[in-house]
């Protein structure tokens, strides 16, 4: 009988091409004749008045065809997503080190890169604010501080039997997509341009190219087949590259390609926001929070980018799974003379969530309670279920997931074993922690929650789908193909995934916020369902049955007494002049938000999960290892369990990197010192915990009517890695029992671990 595609572990649609080296990324495309290669000239130093750029030496390099600065832009010098404040090329003022000043077009990559270094840049250096503390002291912000509150936090704090306060610093994170930023622009007729861009947001690239070139959206086509990783780093940050390529193509009439060298890529593009979190919490003797004030401050960098929404999401997740009866969350968005920070998997959520998980650990240490019990007594529950933004949590499955994981992973037994190990060892100490995740799904900017799709059924029964979502490795295309295959009950290999193009589906949102399958899967489903309905009508007429009785099965389409192969149905419908293509559209229902009062329902639903991590630290060197991890995660009814498990494991390890080995180091002018994999260390295979037990929560079911009741999976599991940080904190605490909560900041590098051990032991 019917073997449904949805719910089956289908392999990635490009898996075979990936392993054979046949998957085509932009730089793999055969270079068109006359291609120009581009390189940006970058500001070497930070904040400065830009007095002039002498480009004679650049132009004099044989092979250089042109050099373009802000003065050469026909339209508006802006590549920003929201605010209009990201210059393609610096104009008058250099805002941060690594800012593009000009672009060189040459006949080879090497010539362009070498020539770009020959510019003589005349600047007057200006003082640079580079840290959260400096910007806060100077009152340098991208927007006014935001306040989210419910109840009287001050009164609750004053009345609480216990009250503690503290701070936590957390570093940013480089995306380190393996494929660097790249774009290829090919000029067309009548001033049109076709741009291949490695971007999560083709529509925005299209709109920005039109803005910079001074042409219409209809003159620009942006195409994305696949990205070699993105993680948020190609949501807004791809724009400068694609726009520069389009500019040169427009100026010269020749195709132009830019691919960033890794070091330039890391210096030029934004990262996860560094945060500082302060808390003041009052609680009962059993660890229940009575009132809390959380103060978040983030380094946004030189421009707005998406920082406003990112910091909002940090506030939205400063509750995580916990009921905060009286709460005030204040968020400072600081403007610094450093590269503008941007979207990164979790989009501020991880920072907010790490803050409240630190509070849980702080309460547990203060009261001498097991941290899991503190977490459990604070969970949302009936009657204790309204978030700080006044949304009622109606799908709370965190208590069940936590209980199931604690049981399955033997939390109590292992916590005892850790204590026993710590009693026997002085140099090595272990720590263990179980932390939950509740992550809100939907763009918090409500209008972005829409998607379009185009389904084309051909007369031979093959199907093409196109939608606004982009493939960055997350398996979006195979999930959507599975959805469409099931509409017609055809094998998934009948469905051809094609590149994402702005000339097929217009005005799309970024593939971001974990929304790819939710939005595009539903839009594609509706498009396919429209065609299916037409076929049913047609067959009903043809075979004298009700359209509603026509069934699409794996054996063919059943209409009345007839069983007709799908491809025959398509052929017949074509001959009968039935339209076999349709668009589909989806707008997420029920959501609304009032940013002025920070209240409403910004999310359609929440995704949940929990992780238990066990770690060991060396108290003499700070070296540490994650020994074992158990994860239970809720993806609703999985569209594709293999893909979902891959997202969970990958996100966890990436989150572990953020909190352990990945350290961004800047100098006092805001120059990034860790701008290559030699100094910036993402996890390797050896860092993967020796034992990882990852399970999808069997009872998972989205209470909202999402596509096949699935849940988003891209970002939520990233935050499961907070269990690693919490376990490391516990291990440090074990070096000096009774002395309180270690002052461990993130990332917990060996240096920070060792210093935290020393500070804790030195306490009176």
């Amino acid at each position, binding site marked *: 009988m019917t073997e449904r595609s949805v719910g089956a572990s289908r392999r*990635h649609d*490009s*898996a*075979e*091409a*990936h*392993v054979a*080296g*046949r998957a085509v990324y932009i*730089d*793999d495309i055969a270079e068109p004749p006359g291609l120009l290669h581009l390189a940006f000239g970058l500001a070497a130093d930070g904040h400065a008045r830009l007095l002039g750029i002498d480009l004679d030496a650049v132009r004099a390099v044989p092979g250089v065809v042109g050099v373009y600065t802000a003065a050469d832009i026909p339209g508006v010098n802006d590549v920003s997503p929201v605010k209009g404040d990201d210059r393609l090329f610096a104009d008058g003022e250099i805002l941060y080190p690594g800012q593009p000043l000009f672009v060189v077009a040459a006949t080879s990559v090497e010539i362009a890169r*070498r020539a770009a270094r020959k510019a003589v840049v005349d600047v007057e250096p200006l003082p640079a604010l580079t840290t959260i503390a400096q910007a806060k002291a100077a009152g340098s912000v991208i927007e006014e501080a935001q306040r989210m509150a419910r109840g009287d936090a001050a009164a609750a704090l004053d009345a609480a039997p216990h009250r503690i306060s503290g701070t936590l610093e957390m570093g940013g994170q480089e995306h*380190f*997509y*393996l*494929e*660097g930023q790249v774009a290829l622009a090919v000029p067309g007729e009548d001033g049109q341009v076709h741009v291949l861009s490695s971007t999560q947001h083709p529509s925005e690239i299209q709109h920005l190219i039109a803005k910079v070139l001074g042409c219409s959206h209809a003159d620009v086509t942006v195409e994305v087949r*696949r*990205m*070699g*990783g993105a*993680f948020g780093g190609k949501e807004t940050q791809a724009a400068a590259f694609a726009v520069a390529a389009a500019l040169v193509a427009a100026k010269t009439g020749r195709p132009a390609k830019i691919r960033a060298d*890794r070091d330039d890529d890391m210096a030029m593009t934004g990262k996860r926001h560094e945060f500082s979190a302060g808390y003041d919490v009052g609680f009962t003797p059993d660890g229940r929070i009575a009132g809390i004030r959380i103060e978040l401050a983030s380094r946004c960098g030189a421009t707005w980018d998406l920082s406003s929404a990112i910091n909002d999401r940090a506030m939205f997740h400063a509750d995580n799974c916990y009921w905060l009866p009286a709460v005030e969350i204040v968020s400072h968005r600081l403007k610094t003379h450093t590269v503008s920070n941007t979207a990164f998997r979790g989009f501020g959520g991880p920072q907010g969530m790490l803050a409240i998980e630190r509070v849980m650990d702080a309460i547990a240490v203060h009261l001498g309670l097991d941290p899991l019990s503190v977490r459990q007594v604070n969970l949302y529950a009936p009657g204790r279920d309204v978030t700080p933004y006044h949304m009622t949590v109606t799908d709370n499955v965190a208590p069940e997931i936590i209980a199931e994981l604690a049981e399955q992973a033997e939390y109590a037994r292992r916590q005892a074993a850790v204590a026993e190990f710590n009693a026997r060892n002085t*140099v*090595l100490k272990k720590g263990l922690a179980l932390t939950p995740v509740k992550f809100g799904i939907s763009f918090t900017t409500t209008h972005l929650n829409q998607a379009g799709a185009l389904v084309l059924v051909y007369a031979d029964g093959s199907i093409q789908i196109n939608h606004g979502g982009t493939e960055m*490795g*997350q398996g979006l295309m195979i999930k959507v193909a599975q959805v469409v295959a099931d509409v017609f009950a055809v094998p998934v290999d009948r469905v051809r995934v094609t590149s994402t193009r702005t000339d097929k589906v217009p005005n799309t949102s970024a593939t971001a916020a974990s929304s790819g399958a939710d939005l595009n899967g539903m839009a594609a489903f509706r498009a396919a369902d429209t065609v299916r309905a037409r076929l049913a009508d047609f067959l009903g007429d043809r075979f004298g049955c009700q359209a509603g009785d026509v069934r699409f099965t794996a054996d063919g389409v059943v209409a009345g007494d007839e069983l007709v192969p799908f491809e025959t149905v398509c052929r017949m419908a074509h001959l009968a002049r039935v339209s076999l293509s349709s668009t589909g559209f989806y707008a997420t229902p029920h959501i609304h938000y009032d940013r002025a009062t920070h209240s409403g329902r910004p999310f359609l639903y929440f995704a949940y999960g929990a992780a238990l991590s066990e770690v*060991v*630290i*060396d108290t*003499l*060197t*700070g*070296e*540490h*290892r994650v*020994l074992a991890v158990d994860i239970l995660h809720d993806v609703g009814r999985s569209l594709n369990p*293999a*893909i979902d498990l*891959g997202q969970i494991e*990958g996100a*966890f*390890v990436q989150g572990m990197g953020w909190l352990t*080995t990945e350290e961004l180091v800047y100098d006092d002018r805001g120059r990034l*010192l*860790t701008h*290559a*994999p*030699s*100094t910036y260390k993402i*996890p*390797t*295979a*050896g860092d*993967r915990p*020796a034992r990882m037990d990852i399970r999808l929560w069997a009872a998972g079911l989205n209470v909202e009517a999402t596509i096949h009741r699935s849940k988003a999976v891209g970002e939520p599991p990233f935050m499961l890695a907070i269990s690693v940080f919490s376990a490391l904190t516990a291990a440090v605490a074990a070096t000096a029992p009774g002395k309180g909560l270690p002052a461990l900041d993130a990332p917990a*590098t*060996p*240096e920070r671990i*060792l210093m935290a051990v020393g500070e804790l032991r030195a306490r009176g």
Partner: protein
Amino acid sequence: MAIRPTVAAETVTNPGGGNVSFLLDGEIVSVTAGATDSVLDLLRYKLRRTGTKEGCAEGDCGACTVLLGDPDGEAVNWRAVNACILFVPMLDGKALKTVESLSAGGDLHPVQREMIDRHGSQCGFCTPGFVMSLYGRSVGAAGTTGEPVADVIAGNLCRCTGYGPILEAGEAVPAGPGDDAGIVAGLRTIARSNAGPGWFAPETSDELAELMLANPGARIVAGATDVGLWVTKQHRDLGAVIFIGDIADLRTIEETPDGLRIGAGVRYNETRAALARLDPQLGELVRRIGGVQVRNSGTIGGNIANGSPIGDMPPALIALGAVLTLRRGDERRSMALEDFFLSYGKQDRAADEFVESVFVPRPATGTIVRVTKLTKRFDSDISAVCGAFAISIDRGVVSAARVAFGGMAGIPARAARCEAALFGQEWSGATVEHAALALAEDFRPLDDARGSAAYRSLAAGNLLRRLWAEQSGEKVSVLDLVSDHD
């Protein structure tokens, strides 16, 4: 031989017509290459083999992993290397395999099948590099035999998967020798050239000595794992380049009761077993230098000659009392390794001189040897601090102590005060504590991206304390817990 500026590589249609010839999937490819043309660019933009990717252009991510094969009698010695920092002249006379080679016959290799079946690719960009590393393991390529899969792929970065499926795919494919008879025969038909525009590739150290006299200041390149970055990242013109990777008499290891003499052209992976026999700590240190690809290219000689302030090998070698031999023409001179490093970036080597070998004495029986590399990440990272101790105890008293550190000064250096605090003293916790405090007087380390001065000072002393704790029966390595975790 005249020196001419480097020229870009271009393919030559007549086999044998270029100055570099290599075997690629049974065909001889002949190209005219400048000294610093990269193999990655040749593959991607000239030969249109775009499966090999550029991820970092500095040998740290492994997306450009290819296999390089040297003839060895009736077999081929394969080794995984990073194409991004491999110069085209280094292909001369060798066989090359890229990811495209694996399915050249139409069928996917078992490694590729396992990667698909276990969902080992997500974005797919790093995938060809992983496939090549795992394929290398499946054919017993250098540095993979008997190694855990995680070590074999430590030089490959993936940002999507979390590595689990890739590790499983590697485990699922057994290792066994391939049939390389055709390749052996093909390699016999290739004549190496020994020079090209701006470069030389001598085959004996006598030739090298002559070339150095004739071209003082010529850049010697063994594996290019360091010099490669001068080209890809700093866009430097290297001037005349002399490749020494195929000088047979520099590629020998002499193992005697007294110790090891390691030729300047011996690659890290080739030294690992012999160094591990000298002391297991040295084998473990080599394991943590770069990934397999880097260890298959880089040499200890190059690491010493370039005088990196970190230079992860020199501290260990200095602690063991290594002696360096340099050659100029027919003259040789030897010196204690620590004396070679003069100041940051400056070594005691004349412009026409070259490092010939390093001799590492075998530690006396009973000597406690401890080498610890402190890094942000265990694998494929450069140390913030690398500390090496060789301490001999005679009837409870320290009878010899050599202590050397990397990352604590502009050069790898001995810790004189620390050594003095140990020598002649009772081997006790108190002595160790004294020596650890003395160590703080030996160095004034710097703050940099790898660690602060305060961390370096504290951790350096703690390495000695940890050594003592270990001698006292404590468990001290987090790595030891990974394998025995339930």
